[in-house]
């Protein structure tokens, strides 16, 4: 963090009165890092490139999830459902009719999808919109309850979508999943969407809308007493969050080239929950940084599994050790910084 503090100090000294730079420091820094990684990504080997793409996808899903969970304070547990909807819809739209015919061996594809093939951008957008629409539909009955009950209801919806994915064979190919999805998610697409989602949601969070949602988070009754239509705003946050998670899911499908219901189990939700808790509930840039750290940590911690050979001392490779190390790091973080790395504040100079 030393270099970060140094840059902050430098900016404070050089531009003591530039309010714009102070306020948008975190956002600007993130966008610059994004653009730099776009250039770096084109020159490093495929392994690092893949990691950069994966972390960009996690950034999109995490900031989307954080918008409803952290900013609006509605604790939901179903991002895996929206990621699944986004992924399946977009994949069905980009796969060529011939591939679909080969993949769907159990039952032929449902009617409109058997002939359609759309460009990647449009398919991604439709995937995101489908996820947003389902979030809207799920939100209407769910927001009749709040707090822990909301978490349980949304958890149920997440499971229902998974069961549907296993059983609606003519649309999802059941447990076999979709295979041979074109590998469209390039560095530019992933980082472009990541920058867009962080930029968009950051602005929304730090605007009137963000303040309304935060007031709902802090005290629903007080918010309602000031004339805020709590239900409508909650639904808005939920739908928007669904949209971005759906976009993330669509990019994820075109990154993996194969999806099945097993990809979108509760574990995905769990990962995203860890990310937004590391970054801090309510901090958009915080969860974006946490998403990058989370993705890279799993690969960098592999060092612990490779075993060490120094002269006569041979420590054999222990598979699974990195998970233990990761868990210990998480516990340490929760003890020393229970509010996450950035708390509920944006990264800025004050």
């Amino acid at each position, binding site marked *: 963090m030393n270099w970060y503090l140094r840059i902050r100090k430098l900016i404070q000294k050089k531009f003591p009165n530039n309010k714009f730079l102070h306020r948008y420091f975190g956002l600007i820094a993130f966008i610059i890092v994004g653009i730099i990684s776009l250039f770096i990504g084109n020159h490093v080997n495929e392994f690092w490139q893949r990691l950069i793409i994966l972390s960009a996808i996690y950034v999109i899903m995490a900031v989307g999830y954080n918008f409803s969970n952290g900013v609006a304070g509605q604790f939901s547990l179903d991002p895996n459902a929206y990621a699944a909807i986004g992924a399946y819809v977009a994949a069905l739209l980009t796969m060529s009719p011939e591939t679909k015919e080969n993949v769907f*061996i*159990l039952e032929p594809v449902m009617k409109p999808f058997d002939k359609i093939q759309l460009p990647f951008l449009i398919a991604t957008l439709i995937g995101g919109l489908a996820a947003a629409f389902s979030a809207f539909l799920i939100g209407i009955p769910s927001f009749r309850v709040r707090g822990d009950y909301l978490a349980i209801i949304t958890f149920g919806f997440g499971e229902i979508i998974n069961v549907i994915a296993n059983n609606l064979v003519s649309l999802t190919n059941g447990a076999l999943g979709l295979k041979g999805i074109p590998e469209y998610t390039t560095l530019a697409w992933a980082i472009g969407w990541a920058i867009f989602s962080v930029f968009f949601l950051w602005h929304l969070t730090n605007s009137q809308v963000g303040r309304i949602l935060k007031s709902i988070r802090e005290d629903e009754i007080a918010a309602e007493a000031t004339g805020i239509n709590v239900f409508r705003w909650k639904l808005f946050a939920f739908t928007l969050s669904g949209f971005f998670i759906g976009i993330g899911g669509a990019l994820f499908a075109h990154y*993996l080239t194969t999806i099945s219901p097993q990809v979108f189990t509760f574990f995905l939700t769990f990962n995203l929950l860890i990310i937004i808790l590391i970054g801090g509930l309510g901090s958009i840039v915080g969860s974006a940084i946490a998403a990058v750290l989370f993705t890279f940590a799993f*690969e960098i911690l592999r060092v612990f599994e490779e075993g060490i050979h120094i002269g006569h001392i041979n420590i054999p490779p222990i598979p699974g050790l990195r998970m233990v190390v990761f868990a210990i790091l998480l516990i340490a973080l929760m003890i020393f910084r229970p509010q996450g790395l950035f708390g509920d504040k944006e990264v800025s100079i004050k």
Partner: protein
Amino acid sequence: MKKIFKLFAILIFNLSLAFAMKQVNVGVVLPMTGPISAFGQQTWEGIKLAHQIEPTVKINGETYKINLILMDNRGDKAESANAASRLITQNNVKVILGAVASSNSIAMSTVAEKNKTPMISPSSTNPLVTKGKKYVFRVCFIDPFQGYVAAKFARNNLHAKTAVIIMDIAQDYSVGLAKSFKKAFEKMGGRVIRILPYKSGQTDFKGILTVIKYLHPDVIYVPGYYREVALIARQARQLGIKAKILSGDGAEAPELVKIGGKAVEGLYFTTHFDEKSISTKLGKEFVKKYHETYHKELNSLAALGADAYFVAVDSIKRANSLDKEKIRDAIANTKNFPGVTGNITIDKNGNAVKPAVVKKVENGEFKYVTTINP
């Protein structure tokens, strides 16, 4: 000071010894943790032992030490692809062995194909793993073949006319086998009365079994994993269903008898090989060593893992080069390689052509029944 110097000298000596022999890196991607870690660990046992039997390879008269690099994929698709990409770009491996689950292998194969690195899967049976891929191979048979074998055995040996299939809709393996069994069984003149679904993790099968009781099929085909197969057999016998039960290689685990007890007596299943009828020299040596090291019966996954390793080493030897393109050609040209599970020939689609074995549970043990050729 002198002591430190001495230690340092020893260290350098050791290091120089380690680097004296040239090395070939071979990557291994397996689910060592996560929900299917048992499969990954069994395969790794086999690969490790095979490496002990053949730790070096000779290329152009020079001996190279084979260096196995294991990566854990947690049974996860994204991790599998990352691991493969890490092995290729960071560790510069010449061949990748893995993964176990077909969905993981498919995610990996995209990376292998793009980087032109040969990959051999020990036990991914889904046809799409190798379909249309130039650098991806496997040493096991594919699902349609196993389904066909089960259907042939049911028709010719059990003389079954009607069958009911119980399939696990959450496992692509099970769905694939059910589909190919139905196709083959009906082609041979049999009739599949009904396909009934369940989901892995389910413990109560009375509902579907009551339906089956009134359908009176000659044979019940249950392509699933051992836990559910054992429970289905148990509950079927409790309800008084007398039909013969037939399963796939997912049933082959000691736990089948532990959970199923008397109910699984007389249950048939198709699998990759039989330990007692191994005829190759390499196979005999491997089985002997396996018993000495692990003190248990050789399972299919370990044997297939060993075969993937042996085929890879043999191909490097025949290619007589460390050029990945030449190694790929050598793997593709593998003909009658005497491996652990029998003679392995790789066909033009990258799949192994080899017979399947039918076994039966008898007195709590797996007895060899017959071999069915492709």
